[in-house]
């Protein structure tokens, strides 16, 4: 009985947490919409021939002057808003998730190793982390962006925008993972199962990744959700500062930046529809993160 409760504890808590359920549904819908955007969207915002400026600035269907073809209206380029936000969410999620993956692999790897080996290696990793912390996310992103502009030939810059942005966001997130992984590893290093493995003479890599890693996944998972939310927001902020993605391959952040121009001009939908979607996505992810935190820290319940 107790075993049963423990095994399905997360599930049980989930079923009894309305906020988590709503968040999961919203996040799933957005993610599904993003994944299946090519099939769901009316037009492909990347395909310039599929829309026309002629249809520009149409309002959503419930407003006067709308075209029923475009349920949520069109932007100043004549792009269908629904299609734009689906593709935008797709790109935002791709960037967020890739940045997160890079940050997690880098951060967890370094954090684990620092926690495992300790001593000088740990000191070096933590000093690098200090330097990274001294250059907050926005600055890191600006720096990476600047360097990429400087060293990459102009021809590939456009194609590598997404990669550069992803790398910039990843670099600003890895410290979080490294610090958490390191702290958790320190705790695990004192656990006897790790000492048993060391005594046996197992390879350090096996001890780190087979033994310790599964035991520190909980807090890392929490960071992942929180950082996914930050990554998506950071991308939006960078777009606002003008170093995000170009307007012809819009992420949610870029769509919001474009929409900001129409804040006062009456075409409210160009700003608020992507903003609402972004907020819904980020809030959902954050709620799920909170939920996971509770699952992994039963004392906080």
């Amino acid at each position, binding site marked *: *009985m107790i*075993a049963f*409760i*423990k095994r399905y504890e997360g599930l*049980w808590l989930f079923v*009894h947490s309305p906020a988590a359920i709503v968040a999961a549904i919203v996040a799933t819908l957005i993610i599904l919409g993003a994944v299946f955007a090519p099939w769901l969207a009316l037009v492909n915002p990347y395909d310039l021939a599929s829309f026309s400026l002629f249809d520009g600035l149409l309002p959503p269907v419930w407003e006067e002057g709308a075209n029923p073809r475009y349920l949520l209206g069109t932007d100043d380029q004549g792009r269908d808003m629904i299609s734009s936000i689906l593709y935008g969410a797709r790109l935002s999620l791709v960037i967020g998730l890739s940045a997160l993956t890079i940050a997690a692999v880098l951060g967890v790897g370094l954090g684990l190793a620092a926690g495992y080996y300790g001593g000088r290696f740990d000191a070096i990793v933590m000093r690098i982390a200090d330097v990274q912390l001294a250059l907050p996310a926005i600055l890191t992103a600006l720096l990476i962006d600047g360097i990429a502009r400087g060293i990459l030939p102009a021809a590939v810059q456009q194609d590598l925008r997404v990669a550069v942005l992803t790398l910039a966001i990843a670099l600003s997130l890895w410290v979080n993972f490294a610090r958490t992984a390191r702290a958790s590893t320190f705790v695990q290093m004192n*656990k*006897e*199962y790790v*000492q*048993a493995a*060391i*005594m*046996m*003479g*197992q*390879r350090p890599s096996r001890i780190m990744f087979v*033994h310790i890693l*599964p*035991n520190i*996944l909980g807090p890392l998972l929490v960071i992942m959700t929180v950082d996914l939310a930050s990554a998506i927001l950071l991308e939006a902020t960078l777009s606002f500062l003008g170093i995000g993605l170009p307007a012809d391959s819009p992420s949610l952040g870029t769509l919001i930046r474009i929409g900001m121009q129409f804040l006062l001009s009456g075409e409210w939908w160009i700003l608020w529809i992507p903003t609402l979607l972004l907020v819904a996505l980020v809030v959902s992810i954050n709620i799920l993160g909170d939920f996971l935190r509770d699952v992994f820290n039963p004392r906080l319940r």
Partner: protein
Amino acid sequence: MLTITDLAVKFPSRFGDFTAIEDVDMVIKPGEIHGLVGESGAGKSTVGAAVIGLLQSPGYIAHGSLTLGDTDLRTLTPEQAHAVRGDRISMIFQDPQTSLNPLMTIEDQLIETIQAHADVSTAAARQRAVDLLEEIGIKNAAERIKAYPHQFSGGMRQRVVIALAICTDPELIIADEPTTALDVAVQSQVLKLIQRLAKDRKIAFMLITHDIGVIAQVADRVTVMRKGRVMETGETAQVLGAPRHPYTRALMDAVPPLDYRIDRFRVPQEEGADFERSLGQKAEDWLLAGVQGAPTGLTLQNLYVRFAGPRTSLFRKPEPYVALNDVSLTVRPGSIMGLVGESGSGKSTLAKAITGLVKPSDGTMILGDEVLPGGKARDRHHPSRQLVQMVFQDPYSSLNSRHRIGAVLEEPLWFYGFVKDADQRKELAASMLALVGMQPDAIDKYPHQFSGGQRQRIAVARALLARPRFLICDEPTSALDVSIQAEILNLLKDLQAKFGLTILFISHNLTVVRQMADDTAVLRNGKIEEIGKTEDVYERPQAAYTKSLLALTPVMQRASFAVAAHD
């Protein structure tokens, strides 16, 4: 006078209410020390929490009555209940390291508590606090009261805790395992203090403990609990001397005596023992097949371990901390060497040095007839890594909670290259589980699905699957209840006899070592105080330290109670 009648406490859970305690009746008179004893899960702490009104959320009192003097504790509003706390009922927690606010001076904490319940000036409160500390045995109290908790040693801290508990002259103090975290010497002092307070100040104590020895030493009356229910209650001499309830009797049987050695403990019933023991035959054969030649002994010569101390200056090298100081001992092949010492004596460091986790700064270690390289100098493939195995103290952390039992057990088999075939490994691992008294189907489960005792069996199985010749048991039973301890000790004895293992048995508990060891070494501050045949050390201790240890260990001398009960 505290009267508990028909008390039941429930914890709502997703599967309905979980009843933590039920049908609990108890009376504690002023000046009486009432022992509340039981194994983990008995609900003894819940009784204490219910009395002081600090049940962990969402627990609640389902029914029953609690009265202190004329006050019905259950009818109090939260504010009234809070006013009663400290004023009339107080509490002492287990760990003095964690029960004082680290950021406030002792003085502030005392004055604040006194002023919370009495309208006195700060100066008066301070005077009272100083007097109290003096009374409780803290010398130079007027000065030391300005100190922070971390500036006191463990025993002194527990005295401060007690001072805090009694500074408002409560009628009742609930002492929840007040000595469990303390070394024997300090434990004895604290228990004496409690006795004195009960006698001089007529304070009633509810002494919650798992240690029957402690009960035997100080309690006037005792209540035995198991799984939330009272098994037996009465005068201490009567309950311990002539237990009426079978559970009490079984409990008494499981307590290792200090003054003589018994071969096997009588164990009431073994957890999950209802299966064919013969399943373990395969593992037994495999183990025996691997044992070649005579058992392996271990000799340590002039071993030193020094750690870098905390650095306090840029220019001075930090003072090294000497964990082991010139330790020499020999574990005879096929024997059990007991190693006793209080916390901080260097017991675990010694185990770590032998297993290569810690590098000795000086000295030699010889396993069988080979010198063991120390620390990182020991190759990952050094044969000793297989020959020497260890059973750890904490069964909750010694098994990787994210690995299935099968994976845990098969790891040594493939790692040391004993069995190449995966199916065979699984079969052997299952058989080994049977050998240590576990259901073989445990192999597909995760560690958290087992109790502490079962996990310790699994830990033993893992050690055996490496075909060790030398086994280190570092406090293998100190995290376990006494009845489970008995089972594990029985198991270790059986295995040692069967496979001719050499064992280094480390414990702070003198009674356990007495039961297990052929030879005994007494360690203190990294130095060996005394070493010899167990019988000699216990019967005819030479070192003063050994003598005091033996004298201070609370023991339950059944015979004496039996006599007393007959009086």
